[in-house]
């Protein structure tokens, strides 16, 4: 009971950590999707012009 009273409040650091994790990995996933779309469009345009 006593130890529970002294658990430090580090909640904001935890939230900051998970925001960083989510944002960085989301940006990477979006970058893969954008590059895929761009390459696919270019591929299809070359195929059409053949």
């Amino acid at each position, binding site marked *: 009971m006593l*130890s*529970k009273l002294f*658990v*430090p*409040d*580090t*909640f904001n*650091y*935890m939230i*900051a*950590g*998970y925001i*960083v*994790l989510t944002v*960085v*990995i989301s940006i*990477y996933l979006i970058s*893969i999707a954008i*590059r*895929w779309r761009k*390459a*696919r469009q*270019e*591929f299809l345009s*070359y*195929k059409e*012009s053949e």
Partner: protein
Amino acid sequence: MVEKPRLLTVLDILSALMILTAAGLVFFYAPVEQLMGQVQKVFYFHVATAWVGMLGFMVAGVAGIFYLRTDKEKWDIAGLGAVEISLVFFLVAIILGSIWARPIWNTWWTWEPRLTSAAIVELIYAAYFLLRSGLDDPDKRARFSAIYAIFGFISVPITFVSIRLLRTIHPVVIGNAEAASQGGFNMDDPMKTAFFFSLAAFSVFFVDLLWHRIRLGKLQSDVNTLRVQSYEKES
């Protein structure tokens, strides 16, 4: 261009479900560590992202060996994809560690062996992209990248063992910690479940991402071939 395999869609769904389950275990199943408070929950994904980073650097080294033996472009594409993914995940691991360190060590960063060697690993693999961008000849680029990835991997086990061999304040959660370490803790069973499930979830996520990245690399290679053919036809 090859259509998306059904197995890849299954892997997409599986990795998403496993990551969500891991997050559920971390937030709702694993207890709050009494000395560090909520920030200790960063540890589960900090280790998992660092693990994916190291795994990818190893895959890049193995792909480099296969490229040098076979001269097949697919190994260059696989190596490039593995380094790219690992660079992102290792960066996340370093930032998460820094956020954890602020309330526990009272500093965002300190030049102790683990943090220093991790920063060096990140810089070594960032330089991998500088090397690639500086070489125009595709064969030469793939060959140098393969050699670089093989030798670059030497830095990864050094980082892994640094907290076990050197005097450091970085905690060792599994195994014996150095006496000077600060912020270590004993994992109870729910913590172990969340920890090992997070490792498994991020491993599956890595395989899924690598597959996507290899498909992207192959498509970009096909586009480059078509571009050259189109240019030759016009001239």
